[in-house]
């Protein structure tokens, strides 16, 4: 689904990665936090950035790759302009989160975990975000849209550019 990613210029990558490593004192114990900050720079974890992190920290690339693929927060492919995270916590589940997710999937035409062809949306599921009173809900670009019903989804998507 995601598009072929072109190789990034290593100098540009380093310009973004180095300050992050600096901030964490080149401490490989902080790898999870480092990758989070690197991802915040690129909106995903580019291959070149992972290679740079491994080299600069002096640790194996295989370890960086393992960590990057283990935690749910990381994405190895570029994400869309808008990020939709449908909460699948228990409270949302018992209030019908499954049909909310299904509606998002059919409406956009992608499955959870995917990015739309035009790079407009990335649809993800997330464990509890702790706003159970609002369930079922979606976190849309870090803002909560709560008390969702199936008919509210089309207007939400239409509102985005």
């Amino acid at each position: 689904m995601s598009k072929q990613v072109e190789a990034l210029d290593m100098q540009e990558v380093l310009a973004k990665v180095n300050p992050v490593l600096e901030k964490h004192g080149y401490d490989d114990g902080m790898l999870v936090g480092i990758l989070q900050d690197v991802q915040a720079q690129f909106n995903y974890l580019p291959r070149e950035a992972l290679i740079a992190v491994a080299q600069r920290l002096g640790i194996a690339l295989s370890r960086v790759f393992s960590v990057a693929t283990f935690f749910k927060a990381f994405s190895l492919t570029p994400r869309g302009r808008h990020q939709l995270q449908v909460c699948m916590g228990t409270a949302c589940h018992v209030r019908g989160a499954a049909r909310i997710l299904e509606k998002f999937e059919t409406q956009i035409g992608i499955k959870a975990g995917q990015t739309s062809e035009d790079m407009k949306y990335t649809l993800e599921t997330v464990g509890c975000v702790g706003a159970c009173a609002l369930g079922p809900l979606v976190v849309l670009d870090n803002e909560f849209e709560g008390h969702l019903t199936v008919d509210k989804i089309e207007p939400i998507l239409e509102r985005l550019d």
Partner: protein
Amino acid sequence: MITRLNATQELEGLRQQILASRNQDTLRITVCCGTGCIAQGAKKVVEAFKRELSAQNVNAEVAELKETGCHGFCEQGPIVVIRPQDIFYKKVQVEDVPKIVARTIINGEVMERLLYSVPGNKKEKCTQESQIPFYAKQERVVFKNNAYIDPTSIEDYIAVGGYASLVKVLTTLQSQQVIDTIIDSGLRGRGGGGFPTGWKWQSSKDAAGDIKFVVCNCDEGDPGAFMDRSIMEGNPHLVLEGMLIAAYAVGNVSEAYIYIRNEYPYALKHAYKAIEDAKAYGLLGDNILSTGFNLDIKICRGGGAFVCGESTALMASIEGKVGEPRAKYVHTSEKGLWGRPTVLNNVETLANVPVIFEKGVEWYKSIGTEGSKGTKVFALVGKVNNTGLVEVPMGISLREVIMDIGGGVPNKKQFKAVQTGGPSGGCLPESKLDLAVDFDELTKNGSMMGSGAMVVMDERNCMVDTARYFIEFLEEESCGKCTPCREGLRAIRNILMDICSGKAELEDIDRLEKLCLAVTEGSLCQLGGTAANPVLSSLKYFRSEYEEHITNKYCRAGVCKDLIAFYIKDNCPGCVLCYKACPTWAIIYNGKGVPVTLIQDKCTKCGACLDVCNLDALEVRSVYDNR
């Protein structure tokens, strides 16, 4: 601005100074800025108050605006409480703010419209927090100050007596006495297992080593629980103080970590700020209050993995590795982070610690049951009228929590089950509602306390589907290291899916039970060790529902799509509720007084119609039922 405190006695001086600088007559407008209220617009309400207070010339001497942590009653957010009168306004919108300032702040009137009334009794309004049934039965120990203080202000915390327990401990107690006090208090870990906290500290203290660690777990991956986040967001210094006391008690600890889920932006922000401020006052860092005691606290951000609730996985993650557990034949209290003795406590546990020293062991022990002392914070969610965080004494019955505090099940639906303990816990039926809630009673009945999620389910929730939901969650969250958990959960999920789609046979239930036992006994860590609980407990209490799916190919809750179809009953008065709710135009309106028509070809069986119908005019039948 901040001057470092150079002696223990200077803290009380600072407190007096802060109190003296505050006018007792000033009104305090506290706006709940917990995540739940923010999601419902609390920050906009805060901005509106700022604008209006200045527009209507209300100066800071008259009224002070305070963004506080979570008040707990998320269902009614955004919440504004005006103190000292404790006037409780619910669901406050930006439009309400000018009137609140004009009428309540300036003229001292109470605005009826914004008051809470008990469902079903609109006339009786509750003016104060304490009159609201949701709060009346709670006992707030760790949450006490959440609704009063600004979590980003260390002065607010000090003003309510914060860090006094630390001073008491540092000046009057030996480290062993601190541990003895915690053992005596009966405090047990609030993160799930319920292991006695004092013993854990003792074991780390006794372990050899000149470098030891304290770790605070704020990873809270349990779907449906958010009390740790609310404590960290709403009162971070309380947690820091608990960590300081733990570090002093264990000894040889100069570094501690807080592991916070990255999905909790406010908790992170407030924790960073709290650490910075505590350092500036000399309450953290080198030579704390000039007593020679050092502690540095660092924050690690979790990457989103439920398995990191497992101590060894969490520690691997702090070391910058994959969050994979290891066998705990040697406990982490002896060999934890980087192989050193490590005390790992959850946020709520640590938040109890300063309270125990503040109010005394005897007071603390007077709350709770024989085996479980103190209070527990629950996230009361799901099909319940009053969603929110509730702090109750151990030993309270499930019925009191769900029916009295929670206000029962909404929309006239029937209560079916309550799920406690999250993915490691179980579902309890109506017959268990009088169970006293504590660590041991819940476990004895096939569920567990867990981190404190309490999810209420009604007749529209299918118990097989619920079990499948939890197993699917765990399958996705399993690290994949050991065979029983990785392969076993997949096999369990396959069987449950077969049951939900009518492809299973009755023998599959036995197979399921055996497999559950194998996963429980064979798994490496507690994720796998407890993973089968949602299945086993629902088999114990709701076995007939499993059998019904298999034998009658029928899901009474109307959830398992492959088995069911919806039919309109003759008593349908054509009220259009379902017509409006249907996302696929499968319901045709035939005029008032006439039943609607449901076109089966267009129906996706989403159940939206069933949720809104409160006249029992829809029937769920098996697709194999050819009536």
